[in-house]
């Protein structure tokens, strides 16, 4: 995993002495232009979000989205904080995401390990196909029975949402893990068994650590999906005091009223963890994106 940036030989553009035909150091202007445009596509909305969050209500609706906030105010943050009861909603969201991330990694890794090592047995092979088939069932299709079921068994709370996240992602995650597991040589495992290790020990001490890069990929996807999810918590959680942040933020978007400044302040606060997580894990995000592609 070495994605060190390509070192470009120092070749100042101002000299204009580049050879005709160009070498690898030649600036690709069309690509640069496209990349600049793409960067703007991220930066402009981000700028509007940040400047909007610091505006007063009057300035937020004056029709000039790009103007700088004047006067600068933190009122929107205070309002968003109290309206959504931010600390509580935030903790619930963290709980759901952490449980979903940990659960998805462990459960899918276990399933994939069992399936790959028992591929010659029909039950395991078919159970793999059975799990894969679940990829074709999106949550909205089975939302109604899920609402009733979770209500019946007392899982109409954040824990139920986390469990549903784990289960719905099981299909895709198991596929990722299986593909990766096939590349781990059986001999490694055999040598450990020779020393008297049982299946659990082999899994926890050898296989699970080896699955690290793939676990990072699964974890990142799991975090993004569960942190941003609106529909599942909105339908499953029955106690309004245990609701997650995205659902609580719904109150800022209605047909009849716009509270851009409060909404954007709230979104910024909710975005923060995702950005922090990305900053710390971007190394794995980048490698993880290609990880799933290579068998």
């Amino acid at each position: 995993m070495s994605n060190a940036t390509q070192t470009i030989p120092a070749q100042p553009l101002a000299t204009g002495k580049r050879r005709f035909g160009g070498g690898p150091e030649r600036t690709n202007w069309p690509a640069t232009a496209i990349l600049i445009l793409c960067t703007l596509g991220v930066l402009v909305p981000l700028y509007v979000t940040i400047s909007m969050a610091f505006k007063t209500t009057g300035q937020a609706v004056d029709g000039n989205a790009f103007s700088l906030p004047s006067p600068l105010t933190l009122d929107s943050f205070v309002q968003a904080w109290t309206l959504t009861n931010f600390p509580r909603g935030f903790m619930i969201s963290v709980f759901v995401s952490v449980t979903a991330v940990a659960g998805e990694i462990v459960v899918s890794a276990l399933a994939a390990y069992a399936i790959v090592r028992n591929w010659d047995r029909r039950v395991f092979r078919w159970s793999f196909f059975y799990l894969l088939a679940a990829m074709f069932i999106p949550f909205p299709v089975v939302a109604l029975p899920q609402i009733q079921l979770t209500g019946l068994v007392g899982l109409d709370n954040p824990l139920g949402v986390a469990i549903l996240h784990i289960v719905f992602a099981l299909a895709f995650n198991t596929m990722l893990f299986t593909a990766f597991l096939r590349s781990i040589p059986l001999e490694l495992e055999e040598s450990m068994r020779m020393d008297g290790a049982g299946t659990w020990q082999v899994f926890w001490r050898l296989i699970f650590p080896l699955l690290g890069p793939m676990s990072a990929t699964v974890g990142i996807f799991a975090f993004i999906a569960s942190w941003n999810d609106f529909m599942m918590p909105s339908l499953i959680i029955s106690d309004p005091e245990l609701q997650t942040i995205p659902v609580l933020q719904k109150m800022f978007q209605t047909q009849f009223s716009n509270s851009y400044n409060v909404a954007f302040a709230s979104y910024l606060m909710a975005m923060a963890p995702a950005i922090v997580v990305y900053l710390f894990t971007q190394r794995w995000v980048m490698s993880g994106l290609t990880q799933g592609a290579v068998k």
Partner: protein
Amino acid sequence: MLPPLTPAGTRVSRRTFLAAAGGSLAAIGLAGCAPAAAAPTITFHQSKPEAVPYFRDLAAKFTASQDRYRVLHDMATNLSASFVRSSPPDLGCLNYNLEMARFMERGALADLSDLPEAGSIRDDVLDLTNWYPTYPGRTSVIPYSVMAASVIYNRRIFEANGLSVPTTWDELIEVCERLKAAGITPIYGTFRDPWTIAQGLFDYTVGGMVDVRGFYQSMHQVGEKVGPDSEVSFQKTLLEPVRRMVQLKKYVNPDAASRGYGDGNTAMAQGQAAMYFQGPWAFGEIEKAATDLDLGTFPLPMTDNPADLKVRVNIDLSLWVPQVSNGQQGARAFLQYLMQPEIQNPYNAKFLGFGTVKDAPPVTDPRITEMQKYYDEGRFYMGASQFIPNTIPAANYIQSIMGGADPEATLRRMDADWARLAFRA
């Protein structure tokens, strides 16, 4: 490279994680249980966003005023899901519309007719709930606040051009012509948002000419036979109002097609146009952008007879208690608390609503006082767009008419949709 195998290390971290997860679970569980043990919790579902702090405050006050119930303000739970789960909120305080009426029609809402508060509601206001499908023999909803909507106009622009409020269709056209001649945009259109056309132009023009309730009663009776030859139909009954609606297109801002609700509010705050087809909910938004304004409201005149003038109303908030709620007593107690004049009247005054009880005080806000007369005399209708099930994308059809589609063909299509839906039912 493999991470070094340190059994103790991994064990501890795993144990710490589990302990942390268990701990947070317990904390959440306890937080949920602790107050409930003291007094039964009444879930109060209310989701009108601008009124959330207001009602949250009321819920806290009620909880503090007695020790039998604790009221929990809920704005986040999905209503349909809670009914599916058989754990609906104990007391609802929501906009009453066709979607809500489905719960009533199926008997999901409890009878409240034994409450003295049910008897205090104005008969014609209580009757508004019967415009939608009902459950026989029950008073399932108690209207809490009525919103009256009509054309919002800028009094200063009218005065500066020597114009008075029009009371007939011809006067309206004349007002528009004179404003146009003076270089002022007569009507601000926000056609990018389909609902603004449906609830504004469409509802006002139709409501001013057609008996909305009678029309939909006949439409339901004719059902799957609705078509070019039926006694009522969109293409026949609504054609004339819709034609007039298209006629008004001449007087909107040229960029109406790309303007949304938010733009309209800002434009009205900046005095860019004289008239605006929105309800009082827009005042709160306009106020955000500018407060030094003199706005008023008048019913859209659609005929040559000023006696035909009517305003559009809707039950903005209604109170109901679900049949399966297990906090009936508490819900009723809080309902009665909310219905006290000293609670209900200030709410309506603050959020520009009209009172629903027989002795409700008249509104005092100068922006809506002009509608009081019509409301008192029962000269109102509910918006025609509000009776079309969501399965028919009526607002989009109406938007396409304003965008240039043939009104007759589009209304024919709505008839076909209506008949198809009736056939399926």
